[in-house]
């Protein structure tokens, strides 16, 4: 498939935001059960939610560049019964709305205590909104992954690993950002987020490698034989029917050389996994914000390459019809 930059930015940016929100809410949840210290509502949860919203808005803007007719984008929320893309279109604004609400509740201290659990644990409004939004964050990861995983003849994508990778890669980058953010506002949660960023990054390394290994030994169900229905061992295309370009020759081929394709693969394997882990480890040791920010920047850059590779690797069966001019 031809990697579209609009979709690359959309999926990576909202992944960061989802991960960041999950990090913020995990911090709050842990503080409720007195495992972690309580953070400042204004500077931590308020600003953190704002940061997540900035990334979400970036993703939303990027998504419009993918559309031929962006002015009709509202229609894409109508087919949620059948289309994963439509479901994503429904869940994304809902997630943005609740992230904004979560941030506002914290920032303006509109946080009434709803009830107390066992007389010790205080459940306030933000905790409830956050719980619903956590569910939305995972739903959004699931929808994004399923958009690709549900197309069964794009065999590189049609695996549960696709969904798992979207979840883990998004969460990893979100926790990396949370680490840098915590260092920036001077929160004690730097180590907590940093440790989880490393753990999730390593987990993502395992699942992404698993999908790479799976795709390396994939057996394509379609062949030129089934494509034109002629059962002969030797079939060669002599003409695709036209000499100029067409949608079919542009949309489904990544167009990069075999060498740059390989370079991107190793680049993302380096930038997404080992480098951020090393940088976060150094950052946690020294507590320097710049190093942690660099760790996130490197990982995000790597994720752009990862998403490019994700699209480029998918081999559409229609390409069988376009082997020669």
């Amino acid at each position, binding site marked *: *498939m031809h990697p579209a930059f609009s979709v690359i930015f959309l999926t990576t940016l909202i992944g960061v935001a989802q991960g960041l929100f999950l990090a913020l809410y995990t911090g709050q949840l842990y503080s409720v059960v007195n495992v972690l210290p309580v953070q400042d509502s204004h500077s931590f949860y308020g600003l953190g939610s704002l940061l997540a919203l900035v990334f979400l808005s970036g993703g939303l803007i990027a998504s419009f560049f*993918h*559309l*031929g*007719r*962006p002015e*009709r*984008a509202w*229609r*894409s*929320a*109508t*087919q949620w019964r*059948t*289309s*994963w*893309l*439509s479901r994503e*279109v429904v869940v994304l604004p809902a997630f943005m709305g609740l992230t904004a609400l979560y941030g506002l509740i914290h920032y303006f201290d509109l946080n009434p205590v709803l009830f107390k659990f066992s007389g010790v644990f205080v459940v306030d409004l933000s905790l409830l909104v956050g719980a619903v939004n956590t569910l939305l964050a995972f739903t959004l990861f699931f929808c994004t992954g399923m*958009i690709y995983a*549900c*197309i*069964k*003849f*794009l065999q590189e994508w049609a695996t549960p690993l696709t969904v798992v990778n979207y979840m883990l890669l998004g969460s990893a980058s979100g926790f990396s950002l949370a680490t840098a953010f915590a260092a920036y506002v001077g929160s004690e949660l730097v180590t907590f987020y940093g440790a989880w960023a490393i753990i999730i990054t390593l987990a993502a390394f395992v699942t992404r490698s698993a999908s790479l290994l799976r795709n390396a030994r994939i057996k394509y*169900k*379609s062949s*030129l034989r*089934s*494509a*034109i*229905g*002629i059962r*002969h061992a*030797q*079939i*060669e*295309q*002599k*003409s*695709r*029917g*036209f000499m*100029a*370009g*067409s*949608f*079919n020759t*542009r*949309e*489904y081929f990544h167009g990069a050389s075999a060498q740059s394709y390989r370079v991107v693969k190793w680049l993302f394997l380096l930038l997404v996994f080992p480098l951020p882990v090393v940088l976060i480890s150094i950052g946690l040791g020294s507590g320097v914000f710049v190093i942690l920010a660099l760790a996130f920047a490197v990982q995000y850059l790597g994720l752009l390459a990862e998403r490019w590779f994700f699209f480029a690797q998918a081999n*559409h*069966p*229609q*390409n069988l*019809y*376009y082997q020669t001019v």
Partner: protein
Amino acid sequence: MKQLALVIDLNVCVGCHACVTSCKEWNTSGNAGFMSDMNPYDADPTGTFFNRVQTFEIGAYPGTETVHFPKSCLHCEDPPCVPVCPTGASYKRKEDGIVLVDYDKCIGCKYCSWACPYGARELDENQKVMKKCTLCVDRIYDESLPEAERKPACVLACPTSARLFGDVNEPNSVVSVAIRENGGYQLMPEWGTNPANHYLPRRRTQITIHEDELIRVDNPLKKERQLPMPDPDEQTLDDITSW
């Protein structure tokens, strides 16, 4: 349920591209908007087509066969492109099974084109909406046309009648009979899309002639003579009389 479709006879197709040009001509003049060509007379031209004819060579030289392969939307009975559409612009008509795109609802997100294993859908670079074969839906029901012309443009244009049009779910329609009697098949059956369009395979065209069919065994004059049979070069009554 009615399912209109094309049946394409690969045994007959000569690869003349008449279906391609007549399709483009009819549909670019249609009321749904033209099929854009970008840079038609410049470097790197590109355009929207509903139908293409491709050419494949089967076998090793010298025993090769050239197969011309017309390719358009197959109007699947279980179209994977329809449920993925986020706007409902892609739909399959209940009354005749034609898969269509509502150009006024399409947002041009291209997701349906990813979900079509055949690459039958093309984004129009000018209108920025997804387009595909309509089976000339604006023509086949047009009662101002003579009944014989209420067929898709490609079917009417084919000089060798390699394209048949009809209801594949009606057992006695011309397409169903052709599929049944000539081993009609579907493309990429492995994905369960159940395409309505069928292709008829290459068939060996031959008749068997026995030697006794070449001589006049029924010639009464020869029959009355004594055996053995006369020399075949000998004159018969047919050769010497004018009836």
